[in-house]
């Protein structure tokens, strides 16, 4: 019974931490997927009197995905309403070139400013429109989401870590006499701590298994956890392939680091 409660005191905080880690990963991936999906719809418009070569933009190293000249006829088609034939002809003659510039990654507001500045160094370019207001609103939302996810993850890790730390300290307190007797016979503190180290390692394995089963269940039963409306969006669907390994690593790291910290503290206290 004592052994079971010792294992539970490790497995519960570790599992809570790993589940919060998977939530952190899931939200992070959803946000990344969402960023990738909206980057397809986001474009900078570059205006020039002369032709601008794609190579010239590529040289600027701004993370360009595509650079395309917009069809003048389509632009004029949108503008010609209410204009007479002469005005349309004049417009056709005077209208500068409009280019659509798409980026590989969704840029930060600062990056966007840098891109705008770099584009303006090309002499042929007379105007750059980055649609900063719309962009900044969306980027602020991402930043806020990231911050909330990070704070949430940090708080859970901190609480799990403190809970583990407390349980390990209690174990040392409970086993004070046993450790003293073993040390009288020449055992090192590390040797005396074998049971708690074994508990930490096995609990790390059990907690990882619990977390992985939970992820597997959630991913295969998304409709239980997410509304049908959201399920229609592709960015909601995330994959965890290589992250299972990181769950194992995190679990082992936290449990071993916590135990070693207490052992080192005990050593220097004596």
């Amino acid at each position, binding site marked *: 019974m004592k052994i079971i409660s010792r294992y539970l005191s490790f497995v519960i905080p570790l599992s809570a931490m790993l589940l919060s880690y998977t939530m952190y990963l899931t939200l992070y991936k959803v946000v990344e997927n969402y960023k990738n999906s909206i980057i397809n719809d986001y474009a900078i418009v570059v205006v020039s009197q002369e032709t601008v070569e794609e190579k010239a933009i590529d040289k600027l190293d701004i993370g360009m995905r595509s650079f395309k000249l917009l069809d003048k006829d389509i632009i004029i088609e949108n503008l010609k309403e209410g204009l007479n034939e002469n005005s349309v002809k004049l417009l056709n003659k005077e209208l500068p070139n409009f280019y659509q510039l798409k980026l590989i990654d969704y840029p930060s507001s600062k990056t966007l400013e840098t891109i705008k500045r770099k584009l303006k160094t090309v002499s042929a370019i007379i105007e750059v429109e980055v649609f900063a207001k719309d962009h900044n609103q969306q980027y602020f939302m991402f930043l806020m989401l990231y911050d909330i996810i990070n704070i949430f993850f940090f708080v859970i890790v901190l609480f799990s870590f403190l809970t583990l730390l407390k349980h390990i300290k209690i174990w040392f307190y409970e086993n004070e006499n*046993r450790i003293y*007797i*073993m*040390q*009288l*016979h*020449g*055992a*090192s503190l590390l*040797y005396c701590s074998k049971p708690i180290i074994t508990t930490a390692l096995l609990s790390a394995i059990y907690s990882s298994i619990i977390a992985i089963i939970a992820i597997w269940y959630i991913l295969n039963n998304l409709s239980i956890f997410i509304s049908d409306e959201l399920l229609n969006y592709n960015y909601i669907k995330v994959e965890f392939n290589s992250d299972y390994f990181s769950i194992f690593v995190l679990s082992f790291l936290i449990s071993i680091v916590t135990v070693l910290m207490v052992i080192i503290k005990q050593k220097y206290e004596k």
Partner: protein
Amino acid sequence: MIIEAINLELSYDKKKAIIQNTSFAIKKRDFIFISGTSGSGKSTILNSLYGDIKPLAGQLMVKNIDMENIKQSQLMNLRKDMGIVFQDYKLIKEKTVEENIMLPLQINGYTEELCDSQATKLLEHVRLGQARYAYPDQLSGGEQQRVSVARALAHNPSIILADEPTGNLDDYSASVIWNLLKGANQQLDITVIVVTHRIPVNFNINFRHFNIDEGKLYENY
């Protein structure tokens, strides 16, 4: 010399010395009794021999190791070559009799088979074969002390330190313990140092007797 003290001073609080300016030397295979009144510092001397307290002044050498400047790893190795018996037995109550006896063997890195065979031998030696899987709480005081002696003998140490080993025992149990310690000294050539306020009568082997008086150790001839 297996143990040598020169002008040794010992204290628990690093202020007032309980043992003052004491010199003594102990050879291999000596059987030593240290006696004195309560609070005279008998146990303090024993504690200094297994490194629980460091000398306040003077020099204490145990197996050629200076106990004042001993490193933690050296102390662990020194203790691995010692057997310690206490008045309150200091058995691990969560472990069986067999596991308690195996403890120094496991710490010394013996294989499981060796631990097992040595435990069997010692349990027979201290006549506790039937209590192999019992827990200390299920044994009488005399039996617990026999387990404690068996544990001290398990890894065939060079030195056995015993602090009032018969202090809580009846006369019969005490005589069993004295016989076990005598056997360790005579048959296994182990140096035995016993702190006691009551030296057994008819102790029919050669032994040396030290007495503590006013913080100094004197040998009685």
